[in-house]
């Protein structure tokens, strides 16, 4: 049953052919078997999940209407607030934080009758590209236990790849959905900034953060988008639907894009490892076989994307994380004797090394005397990169490039070299800076049988076309059907 897509499972549950209780029990048992070694989940919620599953089954039996994700076991990254369990952000400072509210996306999942089985591991406060920065758990790559799952949504990607849920939510600030999806061989979509409400998503870089689905297929990503997309009055930056309407992404999926023009930045892509470049070339070849045309485009400012990103994201983070001070909630130092010490000791004790590094970077970039040279300049670069995309999309429907320069790297390989770690975000960051949607879909393996992802980027609010383009490839290939051999304790 775990082989079913989320969509197929939902339809069978809604038709009364399968019960949600059965599906949920199977997932929870599998988590109990597999997850001690995999480490995808920070917390699971068996009792609540089984209750909800039973409720869906009861309603199906009673002939009551059920939602778009009726009875489907899903997972949520642990930086999305839930009224059940803790919302930790994989940080010691929020280890015991219990939110009094649900994130809007969580509310939407529940309204669609999804069964949330657990909350997934991540880099602390979503800062990282390997999930190694989690203060609470280590997650390994389902394809190779000695390697990282990518990050920061490594837990969600590992859980989906290992069939420990049918779909999951991740968040993407600089590639945190797409890169782990690529490393784990699953589909990861970062929607347009403003397409999905950020209310209840614990902020890292507010102007870059966006929630999106991690799934086993493009169709399931479309299904998840149907549930989570849309304007939210509680998020002023979510976009007015009269300006950018949401649509039925599943319905649009089947319509291939005629006369597809694919933009490629050859020079930029040359920086990726050979297997990655080869897989990209082959993937583009598949599209050409479908009649697509490849257009060489110039994106002259992409070289500055990483620098701009690490200034903007860390600047916002330094402010967003200021609230974790031990005064109102979260970890408070036992040793503090005055309020300044409450701040300094609580933060020193409970924030991780990478988080501290980024807070310091961001604080520095915003400091008087440095603001113009760093933050303001980064904003200018950001605008230029936006301009590059606008210019590029005059010539093509979408841009294809690698998701990451390499496949999954070894655990511990880059932890002492933050700069190399930062450089691994080179292909994903630009979409966040420009706010445009981007997807990672499985497109091959390297010599170590590690998955490779194909990244497709499209203009703002064209998720429907982006998914349709991705689906064109998926229909022609079997990469997404490949499954890691994950075994449990027996």
């Amino acid at each position, binding site marked *: 049953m775990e082989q079913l897509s989320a969509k197929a499972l939902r339809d069978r549950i809604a038709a009364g052919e399968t019960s949600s209780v059965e599906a949920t029990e199977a997932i929870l048992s599998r988590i109990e078997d597999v997850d001690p070694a995999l480490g995808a989940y920070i917390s699971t919620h068996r009792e609540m999940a089984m209750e909800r599953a039973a409720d869906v089954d009861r309603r199906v039996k009673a002939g009551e209407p059920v939602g778009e994700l009726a009875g489907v076991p899903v997972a949520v990254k642990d*930086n*999305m*607030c839930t009224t059940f369990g803790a*919302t930790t*952000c994989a940080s010691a400072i*929020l280890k015991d*934080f219990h*939110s*009094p*509210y649900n*994130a809007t996306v969580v509310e939407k999942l529940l309204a669609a009758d999804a069964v949330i089985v657990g909350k997934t591991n991540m880099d602390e406060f979503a800062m990282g590209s390997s999930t190694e920065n989690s203060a609470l758990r280590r997650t390994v790559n389902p394809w190779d236990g000695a390697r990282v799952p990518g990050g920061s949504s490594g837990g969600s990607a590992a859980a989906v790849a290992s069939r420990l849920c049918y779909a999951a939510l991740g968040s993407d600030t600089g590639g945190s959905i797409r890169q782990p999806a690529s490393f784990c061989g699953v589909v990861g979509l970062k929607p347009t900034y403003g397409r999905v409400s*950020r*209310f*209840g*998503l*614990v*902020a890292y*870089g*507010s*102007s870059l953060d966006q929630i999106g689905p991690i799934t086993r297929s493009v169709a399931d990503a479309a299904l998840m988008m149907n549930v989570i997309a849309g304007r939210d*009055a*509680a*998020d*002023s*930056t979510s976009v007015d639907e009269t300006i950018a309407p949401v649509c039925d992404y599943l319905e649009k999926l089947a319509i291939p894009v005629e006369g597809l023009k694919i933009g490629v930045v050859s020079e930029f892509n040359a920086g990726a490892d050979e297997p990655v470049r080869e897989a990209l070339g082959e993937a583009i070849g598949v599209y050409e076989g479908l009649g697509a045309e490849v257009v060489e485009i110039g994106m002259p400012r992409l070289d500055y994307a990483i620098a701009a990103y690490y200034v903007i994201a860390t*600047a*916002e983070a*330094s*402010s967003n994380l*200021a*609230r*974790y*001070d031990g*005064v*109102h*909630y979260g970890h408070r130092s036992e040793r503090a004797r005055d*309020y*300044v010490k409450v*701040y300094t000791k609580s933060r020193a004790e409970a924030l991780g090394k990478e988080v501290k590094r980024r807070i310091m970077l961001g*604080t520095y970039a*915003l*400091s*008087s005397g440095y*603001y113009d040279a760093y*933050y303001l300049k980064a904003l200018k670069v950001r605008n230029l990169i936006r301009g590059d995309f606008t210019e590029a999309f005059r010539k093509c429907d979408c841009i294809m490039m690698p998701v990451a320069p390499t496949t999954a790297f070894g655990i511990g390989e880059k932890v002492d070299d933050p700069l190399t770690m930062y450089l691994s975000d080179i292909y994903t960051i630009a979409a966040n800076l420009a706010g445009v949607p981007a997807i990672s879909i499985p497109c091959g393996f390297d010599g170590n049988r590690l998955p490779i992802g194909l990244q497709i980027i499209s203009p703002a609010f064209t998720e429907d076309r982006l998914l349709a383009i991705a689906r064109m490839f998926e229909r022609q290939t079997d990469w997404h059907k490949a499954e890691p051999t994950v075994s449990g304790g027996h």
Partner: protein
Amino acid sequence: MGGPVEHKVIVGLEIHVQLCTRSKMFCGCAVEFGAEPNSRVCPVCLGMPGVLPVMNRQAFEYAVLAALALNCEIARFTKWDRKGYYYPDLPKNYQISQYDMPLSANGFIEIPVGGGGTKRIRIIRAHLEEDAGKNVHSTGGFSQVDLNRTGTPLLEIVTEPDINSGAEAKALAVELQRIVRYLGVSEGDMQKGHMRFEPNINLIVTRDGTEYRTPIVEIKNLNSFRALERGIDYEEQRQLDEFLETGQVMESGNKTTRGWDDERQMTVLQREKEEAHDYRYFPEPDLVPVELAEGRLNEIASRLCELPISRQVRYVKEFGLSEYDAGVLTGERATAEFFDRAVESGGEAKRVCNLLTQTGLKIANERGCGIGDLGFSPKGVAELAAMVEAGDVSATASAQILEAMVETGKEPRVLAEELSLLQKSDAGELEAVVEQVLAENRQAVEDVTAGGKKSKKAMGFLLGQVMQKTRGQANPKVVSQILAAKLGGG
């Protein structure tokens, strides 16, 4: 040293005005003074993880309305910024404010300076921001924080240093209070901290033809008109004494902060050196910029009314009212508008003024309501004023009638008849009474005709006798005229 010394005090004001919206600036919590600590809070104003602010449109419109009344240019595009500093009463450890693009700038306020004149104080800017909570310092060696006030909308107004005395600062404060109350954008209640002042004060001292500027002192958080005036006056003397003793002049970095000790009626040093405050302002990524459309701006502007100071000047010039009376009538918008309507209904201005200031407002104050709530209409007051003017009732009787109007709601003329307060002005009828009195009081008649000292007194006696005979209903003016005619002058 030595030689004649002259000095001038230079003051710029920073004023915080609490806007009287029902809910807070960025969340739905009620703005309420005196509620149980931490009972008017929600995840947003508590700064919990993942929450987002949503702008209160009412607050924005109130701020624009106030800025228009302060003759400011209104920005058609304005944005929000984060001002970062750590303090326990600020749960996010940043305040949402406006930095480089305030909603308004370059205005002025006219303040009364005595003798019917006004002085123009320039306003640098007025912007919106959220208030912090309150730290309650208890005696047990710890502090408590009440966050009910956190997130209350504040209008911050910054003036140029155009103020040259404590009295002028007070006049400005009083005028501003009248303006915001007139517009209904703030209750302006000093007891509830609705207006808080922070003057920046220094002196220009001239000695032997050379000008010296003393170091700037900022007095923090003054919340009464008296403290504002006295604080500035105190600083004026203190800085002069200090300059004469030390000769210290203003230089960068020697600005100090002082507090007002109300008990000792003096300022006390709080911070020796202006700390190099670095608030690390940057654009608030969780809010979208506000664009003010022409139509919306016009709609807000249509809510403006004639401001108190121009009304006050008009009353003195147009109606010849005393400055004191004009000040009383313009104290509240409702009173001024009542007065205007009574005058428009044909009431003679001075008579209407007397009725309102001497009787109407007294009753309103006793009852704790506005002049418009007493049950009499502007038209009724105008009619009563006309009756006094025509000599139908005496001034004394008119007060009695106005009181009766409050009690009964009847028309003034009806009441005058019911209470027998109508004056007899029929010369023929009165002449007979006068004849009778003259016949009965020969000695007094002789005294009058004899002239000299006794004459005036005797005349008064005769007048009194006539009044007594008519039980006070004779018009004394008419009686005097008849007496004078009969006795030849007087």
